[in-house]
């Protein structure tokens, strides 16, 4: 069966950009997906589940990133977009009721 591919564009809003803490939350949330998730910034395309990869994007305030999920739970990539939209403010980020 063809796995769905879902794309979502987000803009980094927090003044420090995608620094350590956001990158950590971002990668950790991505790891909870079964789908393969890529983050694309212009010509760079990296693994969203890798904090190292995510940091190499050097995303700053105003940077536009595209999330591209491929797999069974790709539709839920919205949750990652939501994390970015909320400027990485978390309370339920990591407990949105997904298993692993």
């Amino acid at each position, binding site marked *: 069966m063809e796995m769905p591919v879902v794309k979502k564009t987000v803009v980094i809003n927090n003044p420090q950009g995608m620094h350590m803490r956001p990158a950590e939350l971002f990668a950790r949330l991505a790891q909870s997906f079964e789908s393969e998730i890529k983050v694309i910034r212009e010509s760079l395309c990296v693994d969203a589940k890798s904090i190292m990869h995510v*940091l190499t994007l050097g995303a700053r305030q105003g940077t536009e990133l595209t999330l591209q999920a491929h797999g069974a739970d790709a539709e839920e990539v919205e949750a990652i977009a939501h994390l970015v939209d909320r400027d990485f403010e978390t309370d339920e980020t990591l407990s949105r009721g997904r298993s692993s």
Partner: protein
Amino acid sequence: MRRCRRSMRGRNGTPPGYCRIARHSNRRGTRTRQRGTRRFLPRDAVEDEIERLHGALEAAASEVEFNRQQVADHLGEQYAAIFSAHLQMLRDRRLHEEIEEMIRERHYSPEYAVSRALRRYAKVFQSLEGQYMAERANDIFDIEKRILRNLLGASREELAQVTSPVLVLAHNLTPSETANLNPKFVLGMVTER
């Protein structure tokens, strides 16, 4: 378990779990390794060395987890966040793959492969716009040091072991080094950066 080697309580009244940094390299077997900076491996050593790499990564991760907990307990969760990030870096699957590939394909020793892989990231961070990301290279050096220390089985981390009042003058202090300073003895610190 080998976590627990450092304590903010210092040397006197050492908690039961305290131990000097032991020879982690022997944890998974009795083979003794020569120390040093041998760069290349004989072909038949690859699998053992990859296992040794993973032992060191796990040991480093449990140290960071211990630090994270200590800092969270003493200073609060927000100060411990940096260690959560270090933990993620140490467990980064892509990083693991990159290091393993260097060991498997190029027959680098785990020590050399760890340095090569991490320094590549440090370089990228330093090339990014803005002071903040450039400074993140420090975090990379911090975890590099930690993994290497576990691989090489170095016996102590001097700065964490001071037993009398000191002033610390340093070119640079990594987050882990700072977190491990014993506030009982460290009266002050000066860094160049």
